[in-house]
């Protein structure tokens, strides 16, 4: 696992060097995603990064609307852990590596890259559904 992650990091660094991309973290807008489009990927969880300010979920699977791409790793971004717990019913162990899942997402506008903003994930084994719309918290006294 460690070597696997290190390899991923190395690959990512290589990508950064090639593209001249800076490593910056912060609260950011989500308009790099095309929110007018919804796609669906079926596959297995690779990794859940339960971090602030944006949780991410990697899935190795096939996107229904991009079947020509075949099986590939896609990275989905979400809001913060705290907001996911409140607005989407998430837990840190809501999904685990290897879990079969179906994810609905808004894809990156840059169609060369396999990424998106997660809207909903369904865990195949349990049927549990977790969402990511933090604007669903806009009333007092929620339970």
């Amino acid at each position, binding site marked *: 696992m460690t070597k696997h992650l290190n390899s991923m990091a190395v690959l990512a660094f290589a990508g950064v060097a090639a593209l001249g*991309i800076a490593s910056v*973290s912060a609260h*950011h807008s989500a308009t*790099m995603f095309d929110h007018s489009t919804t796609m669906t990927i079926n596959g297995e969880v690779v990794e859940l*990064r339960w971090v*602030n300010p944006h949780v991410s979920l990697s899935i190795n699977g096939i996107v229904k609307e991009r079947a020509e791409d075949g099986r590939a790793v896609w990275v989905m971004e979400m809001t913060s852990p705290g907001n996911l717990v409140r607005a989407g019913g998430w837990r840190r162990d809501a999904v685990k590596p290897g879990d079969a899942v179906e994810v609905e997402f808004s894809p990156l*506008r840059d169609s060369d890259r396999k*990424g998106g903003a997660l809207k909903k994930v369904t865990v195949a084994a349990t049927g549990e559904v977790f969402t990511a719309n933090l604007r669903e918290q806009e009333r*007092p006294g*929620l339970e």
Partner: protein
Amino acid sequence: MRSQFLAMMFIVLASAATADAQSTPKKPPAIINPAPTAQDYADLAKLPDWSGVWNPKITDQDRQARTNPPPWNEKVAKEAEKMWADEKAGRPKLIFYGCFPEAHPSWMLVTHNAMEILFTPGRVTMLGESDGNRLRRIYTDGRAHPDTSDPTFHGHSIGHWEGDTLVVDTVDILPQAPLAISEAVGVPNDGDMHVIERIHLAEKDILHVDLEITAPKILTAPWKTTRIFFRQRARKFDIVEGVCQTGDYREAQDDNGHHIFVPVEKTEWGNLVAPK
């Protein structure tokens, strides 16, 4: 001869002592924060109940970004229009870079995260979630702003109660702190920003923060706006630690089996670099 020598030594030593006294002025007495009394704690019960966790009305932030924009000066208005266009085109400017705090007043204006408000004698404390360093200390003990400016992300805040409304006056905010109306539209205030807030319950479980923001380097007039927060008491809303920098890393283990963080990469807009 000997008496002349002693007299001269006396004059030299006396002069040195005088000079020393003049170069090290007497230290003013320390200003002490007195220990709270039982009455001070009892008086807290007379304040309005702002307990619980407050989460923002983001849809109203979105609405006001368009319907009640700040009176940007001509130069900044052009910058803001470009930011709007870039955001719409999917190239949102990263105005909260480097995981710095959103700062005051942008925390109030554009936060997507919850906060809590604590009352203690002589102080109101606002604690936010998600960047681990989101904290406002509002002194209600009658002190004034300091004579010497020492700017910080959240500035120096003093407050007083007018009935059930907390009136907060904030100065000394870092010039780099952005005045933001969305996560992709905002500019550094460039200095001399002054914020007055009137914080009050609009309804039993709805908190309003009425802001009046003066930022002479970027605005042509004071900007008035209101932000809305909802009270939650369900335990799942309890504020959790949120360290923004963790977003730059993933969890891993090193060759010795120790748990560590290893970096991930981000685009210039702040999202993860997705695979090709």
